[in-house]
């Protein structure tokens, strides 16, 4: 499937732009995107050489895919063309960090784990916990707008972004925002590039508002099907079994629980639903006193909600809420988001109050289709991530189409986060195109007129 054009013709100028030692041939496996193998991999050591590389590609219409940690390369449509894999990993420095300002400026190729380690030395952190883990780079996290359970309490990464440096398709380096926590001088260009999958420019540097690490963390696990098949086994979303044995989810009970927890004075920093079998992981952060209070309150609340639904005797008896150590609960939530089923990952977006109903429907559909499934949801944000196991291509397609329509009913949408390359062309990878697609296309035309940046991989074939 990979089409490797003659490499020699483009090698020399790229070596001149980035330095000979920073250009190498592509590895047909490790460097491919959806099976499409780039002609060369270029890893510029600094911003200036990265800009020269892009300028060259722009002039010669070479298609470029930026890569950070490579943890989310499966996201997006099949590359229409791919000449250069642009490895941003050479830009991995902290540019400016003033702990007392709670701001950090970091190059895009820095891995999240390395950044967190440095921030941690000052009792601070960037409150993002992407399922892809610490190997993801800052640029990759921004480009994919990745988020994890902590968004419930600390907001999305985009809400932490203060400024950005981007190399435009033609090699111009552009700065926006700044290094201060409030700044309304000009358009918020950083927002435009966040979640744009590198299709409007290559992010090379970003400034964030960081957070003092709360002194205490705590969590509560609520098992919703404790009397069912899953009662005896150690529940783990990562190793979630196929649907077969799990009892059906009581969506009303789950929704009542979510509503109560979200309305409580103790606001959770994490509120994840995972399964099957269904369980809820609720996290809190703050002072020791706050966390102790919040954990107790959540346990009491779960019991009260279960009692109130006493009419449905089976589920009421089945609900079991208990405090669990934060690292265990958080780790379990992340593992469930990563998933362990090999085939497909779909992210469904809807209103928070539909999360329970979406999960119930997805479960029923998957079970009816006989496809193994597991899920993890950011309940407050209305994001349900569904992992599917092996099944016939048509079954996968029809399930996804069905769920796209389901999300559409509530003004939501769906994204196929990972799928076998062979299946991608027949899937609505980015769900239903938004009505503003014409504006998005016009922006793309302005910022990347030759369509060299990730052509074909973004929404609407951008």
């Amino acid at each position, binding site marked *: 499937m990979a089409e490797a054009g003659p490499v020699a013709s483009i090698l020399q100028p790229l070596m001149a732009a980035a330095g000979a030692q920073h250009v190498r041939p592509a590895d047909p496996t490790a460097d491919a995107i959806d099976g499409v193998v780039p002609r060369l991999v270029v890893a510029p050591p600094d911003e200036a050489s990265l800009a020269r590389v892009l300028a060259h590609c722009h002039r010669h219409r070479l298609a470029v895919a930026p890569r950070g940690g490579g943890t989310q390369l499966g996201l997006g449509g099949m590359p229409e063309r791919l000449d250069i894999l642009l490895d941003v990993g050479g830009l991995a420095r902290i540019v400016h960090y*003033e*702990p*007392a*300002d*709670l*701001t950090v400026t970091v190059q895009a190729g820095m891995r999240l784990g390395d950044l967190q380690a440095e921030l941690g030395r000052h009792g601070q952190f960037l409150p993002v916990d992407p399922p892809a883990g610490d190997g993801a780079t800052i640029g990759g996290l921004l480009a994919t*707008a990745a*988020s994890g359970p902590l968004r419930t309490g600390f907001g999305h990464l*985009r809400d932490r972004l203060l400024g950005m440096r*981007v190399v*435009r398709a033609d090699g*111009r380096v*552009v*700065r926006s925002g*700044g*290094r*201060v*926590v*409030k700044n*309304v*001088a*000009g*358009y*918020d*260009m950083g*927002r*435009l590039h*966040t*979640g744009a999958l590198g299709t409007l420019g290559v992010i090379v540097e970003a400034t964030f508002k960081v*957070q*003092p690490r709360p002194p205490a963390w705590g969590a509560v696990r609520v098992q919703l099907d404790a009397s069912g098949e899953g009662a005896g086994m150690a529940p783990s979303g990562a190793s979630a079994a196929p649907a077969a044995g799990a009892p059906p989810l009581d969506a009303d009970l789950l929704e009542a629980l979510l*509503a109560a927890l979200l*309305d409580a*004075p*103790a*606001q959770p920093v994490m509120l994840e639903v995972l399964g099957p079998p269904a369980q809820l992981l609720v996290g809190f952060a*703050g*002072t020791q006193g*706050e966390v102790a209070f*919040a954990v107790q309150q959540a346990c009491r609340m779960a019991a009260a909600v279960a009692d109130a639904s006493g009419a449905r005797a089976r589920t009421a008896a089945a609900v079991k809420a208990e405090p669990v150590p934060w690292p265990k609960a958080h780790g379990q939530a992340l593992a469930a988001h990563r998933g362990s089923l090999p085939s497909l990952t779909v992210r469904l*977006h*809807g*209103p928070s*109050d539909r999360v329970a109903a979406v999960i119930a429907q997805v479960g029923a559909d998957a079970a009816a289709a006989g496809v193994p499934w597991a899920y993890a949801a950011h309940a407050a944000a*209305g*994001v349900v991530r569904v992992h599917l196991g092996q099944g016939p291509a048509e079954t996968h397609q029809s399930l996804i189409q069905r769920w796209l329509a389901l999300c559409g009913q*509530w*003004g939501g*949408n769906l994204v196929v986060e990972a799928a076998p390359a062979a299946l991608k062309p027949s899937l609505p990878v*980015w769900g239903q195109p*938004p*009505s*503003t*697609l014409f*504006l*998005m296309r*016009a922006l793309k035309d*302005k*910022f990347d007129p030759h369509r060299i940046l990730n052509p074909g991989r973004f929404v*609407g074939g951008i």
Partner: protein
Amino acid sequence: MSKSAMPSAVHPSVLARLAAIVGPQYVLTGASATLVYDCDGYTLERQSPAAVVLPGSGAEVAQVVRVLHEAGIPFVPRGAGTSLSGAAVPSPEAVVISLARMNRILEVDLRNRRAVVEPGVVNAWITRAVAPQGYQYAPDPSSQGACTIGGNVGTNAGGPHTLKYGVTVNHILGLELVLPDGQVVAMGGPVEDLPGYDLVGLVTGHEGTLGIVTKIVVRLVREPEGCRTLLAVFDSVDDATRTVSQIIEEGIVPAALEMMDNLVIQAVEEAFQFGFPTDAAAVLIIEVDGLEAGLDEQAGAAARICRANRAREIRAARTEDERRRLWAARKKAFGALGRLAPSYVTQDGVVPRTRLPEILAFIGEVGRRYRLRIANVFHAGDGNIHPILLYDERDPDEVRRVILASDEILNACIDMGGSVTGEHGVGIEKVRHMERMFAPADLEAMLDVRAVFNPKGLCNPGKIFPSPGGCVELQRPRRAAPA
């Protein structure tokens, strides 16, 4: 349509079409009818528009815009007119589109924490509508009793409590936008993270240059269970600013952290008789909020830092009423300053928080050097300074010194890695500063965005960006209005 002695710059046939859309009583022309639209909270420049139109719905806005677009007439969206940077100041041939009539809260959905509102809804109305159920709309600009959500989206407005809760853009989920050619588009929406470019984030802070926002989905947040509000009194500005840095550095995240210096304390005390110590060099208002279970610990930690930095007195608001009066005094401080001088101009710079002692010392030095009184009341926790330069407009030399001093202060902000505007916007006031803050390529990228949305430049022309070749002249400050 109001009669006027002077014919409007807008052709009568266009006025007739506009009147047919919104009703004749909602098209204003003539000097007396349009007088209040000649400026906003930034009063240094005044210009009556050719006409004012007050549509009653998004559909009417779209029709009005289509007519103006066809006729090639520029237009300026306007909310409550509280902008401090002239974002709503028209050019003489422009039509002002006032969104004041579109002031309904259309939907409140507490379970999903959002409300859908029209742009003319006043900021404080949203919180008022949901407070009984324990929710609030978090961004709280000082003008929140008057300013509209549409205007807040335009300027990406801030406020004291944005330190913990974020600014407007962090609380906007979706927008309906009438493009400058009259097309209506919906971006974002009640559901988060929809695939595609983040147009909501891009449009928030556009100062009316990308279109006219006609519907807004805002995020609501749970009201904190409780709060503790402290007033810390200092004998030196330096001690107060160091306290600010240290509170942030030690990992306390206050809901608000505000500072007022001696001049402001005097003016506010005279106006509100709150009981501020008028001999103090500076006071800090420190508010922590959250679960009751953690409040005393947080407030205690903040108080310890104040004392370590030689605070001579720390008072805690004992009742909700006392807290409300303290905040009322803070939010109305700008108005109170009118007592100290015939005129004043408010600046809106930002510096990294650790540079606060430095910039405050610099402002003091600039004041001495230019023989000006400069008052300071600002969002210290954010590093967002509001130096207020007092003067008498009848003294031309003092006016000249005010302009020079303002410029020096803003340049110092840029040099410290900050910004010339933290929350008031660029408008027309700071157009010339954009070229100091940004390189030509940076501005080109922004202009590329504007060209996509607003290719003919009809929508709010002359704002934010320097026009090619045209250098905006130093304006003569007159009276400046409140934040």
